[in-house]
């Protein structure tokens, strides 16, 4: 178990290094920089050039990369031109917001996917299954940002059931019960909107896992032992079909990252996704690179987590 986890964690190191190089090069290739975005006619081009030189932006890329990585390792993600403060400080609160939003979305994703997938797989080709499958097709076909807009409009503006922006009501003291409740209240609508769309992958995956497991030989063995149909489902089919969902978890995380970018912007939710888009528009590249790097690391961690979960629960790859 430990050997496996350590080995698996070691694999991450080259992954992360490669990721950081890629991100760095892409960032350098983007047109313009934070200074060219400054529309201050009083600053002369010579002065800009001086600034660039002093910031080290004229050095070869690997020198710049070395400086950047050196900083990142020490928690210095650079300086935001827009906020005029360290990127790490800007990211700090938002990463927590995005974490909660993602967690809530994950919970809703599974709350929706597991009962639907199970029903659809167990009674496949029934009317119920057809209804669920139709939902998944609609989910596949609907762009998340349009769906999120509709949800916001209906439940936020028309019905007024949920707040339409922010992550917490202003004026509340952090740590109080009201504060926590307000945070949750702000989470629910974006999380559900995202979950309803992203869950369709999981529903389909679970459905096909169950249909697949249903016709395995060991299911027949269980029936031949005299197990009732409900026992066959709960003890044999479900357990064996839910397990692969753990392997699906890493994929889920990647989907979430893409999702938060849309959803946070639409719901005005101050998280990493919103920061990401804003920073791109304003060419605040030190923030963009930092956020991209963090997204990438989250995806790698998600894959790691799903591998470790799988190694814990699947005896076939469990290392004793």
């Amino acid at each position, binding site marked *: 178990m430990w050997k496996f986890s350590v080995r698996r964690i070691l694999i991450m190191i080259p992954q992360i290094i490669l990721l950081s190089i890629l991100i760095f090069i892409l960032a350098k290739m983007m047109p313009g920089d934070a200074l060219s975005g400054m529309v201050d006619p009083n600053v002369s081009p010579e002065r800009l050039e001086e600034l660039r030189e002093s910031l080290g932006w004229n050095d070869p890329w690997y020198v710049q990369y070395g400086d950047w990585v050196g900083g990142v390792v020490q928690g210095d993600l650079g300086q935001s031109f827009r906020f005029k403060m360290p990127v790490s400080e800007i990211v700090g609160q938002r990463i927590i917001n995005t974490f909660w939003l993602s967690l809530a979305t994950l919970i809703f994703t599974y709350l929706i996917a597991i009962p639907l997938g199970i029903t659809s797989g167990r009674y496949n080709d029934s009317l119920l299954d057809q209804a669920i499958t139709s939902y998944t097709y609609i989910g596949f076909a609907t762009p998340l940002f349009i769906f999120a807009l509709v949800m916001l409009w209906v439940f936020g503006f028309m019905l007024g059931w949920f707040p339409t922006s922010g992550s917490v009501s202003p004026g509340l003291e952090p740590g109080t019960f009201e504060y926590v409740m307000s945070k949750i209240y702000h989470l629910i609508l974006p999380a559900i909107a995202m979950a309803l769309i992203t869950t369709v992958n999981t529903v389909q995956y679970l459905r096909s896992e169950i249909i697949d497991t249903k016709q395995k030989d060991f299911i*027949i*063995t269980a029936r*031949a032992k*005299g*197990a*009732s149909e409900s026992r066959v489902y709960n003890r044999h089919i479900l*357990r064996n079909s839910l397990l692969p969902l753990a392997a699906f978890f890493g994929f889920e995380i990647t989907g979430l990252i893409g999702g938060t970018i849309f959803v946070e912007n639409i719901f005005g939710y101050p998280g990493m996704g919103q920061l990401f888009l804003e920073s791109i528009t304003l060419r605040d590249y030190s923030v963009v690179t930092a956020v991209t790097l963090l997204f990438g690391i989250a995806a790698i961690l998600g894959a790691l987590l799903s591998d470790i979960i799988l190694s814990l629960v699947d005896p076939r790859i469990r290392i004793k």
Partner: protein
Amino acid sequence: MSEKLLEVKNLKTSFRIKDDYYAAVDDVSLSVNKNEVLAIVGESGCGKSALAFSIMGLHNRAKIEGNIMFKNQDIANISPAKLNKLRGNNMGMIFQDPLTALNPLMEIGDQIGEALLLHNKDLSKEKRKDKVIQLLTKVGIPRPEHVYEQFPHELSGGMRQRVVIATAIANEPELLIADEPTTALDVTIQSQILDLIKELKDDMDAGIIMITHDLGVVAEMADRVAVMYAGQIVEVSDVYTLFESPLHPYTRSLFNSVPNTAEAQSKLHVIQGIVPSLQKLPREGCRFSARIPWVEESAHEEHPELHEVSPGHFVRCTCYKHFNFPDSSKEEQQHGIS
């Protein structure tokens, strides 16, 4: 005559393919007594497993017609709850493929223990474990305590087949259906497994249906033999009669197509063609006629039936009378047998 344990009457098992039903088992009648081994032989795809599954009620979406009388109770038309009381308890089945017959995520001990648990709720956990260890020992698994906690992927094919057998016999069934229990295994393990099944028969007075296409197994194990072709029984008799004087051309081809060392293996007596797929099965007349085209049509019955040629020896169709199975390879060529 000893006591009749199982009597199958006019069983027809049909699978739905697209919009039609096709019978994989067609009008099969057979019986098994206590302490008797009935062997069912026939080439791949002739419906042996489909027959076994029908008896155990394991077909999911098949149409089952006819009667399956188990101890004078028709189990073809019985509630699932009642059937579940019999399955794994009064009747057990050993499956064809030991590699897939076990749940990959369940410990061996739990899989065998499940059969005990389902039919004896009062058995304490400790007693159940003891019984499982006993069963593992009985089927010849070394270090049973260790294997108890292992998962299927940690065991070899032979060991897994033993586990499957231990599961099937956990509750000392009166009827044991063994679907090619040894095909997946190598020869030495094969004979151990057969010995084990024989032992069970003698110990428990069980009736056994032994499905195989290995005539060696038949000779060693069987009291009676039913030969299946294309979903039907074409010949049935006691094992001596069948080996001495096989009548149906298909049975005779089976015997001749077993390579024996004396008659060089280069001259295998195999009848042309293969068993047709389910949808292409001939449904009228003698199903075997297409594979013996040199026998004239008038030799076949229009609706071939089983005829009792001597007490307990039944043959389907009348074509056997006109069929001259070549004994020498010369004639063989004349008749166009490849």
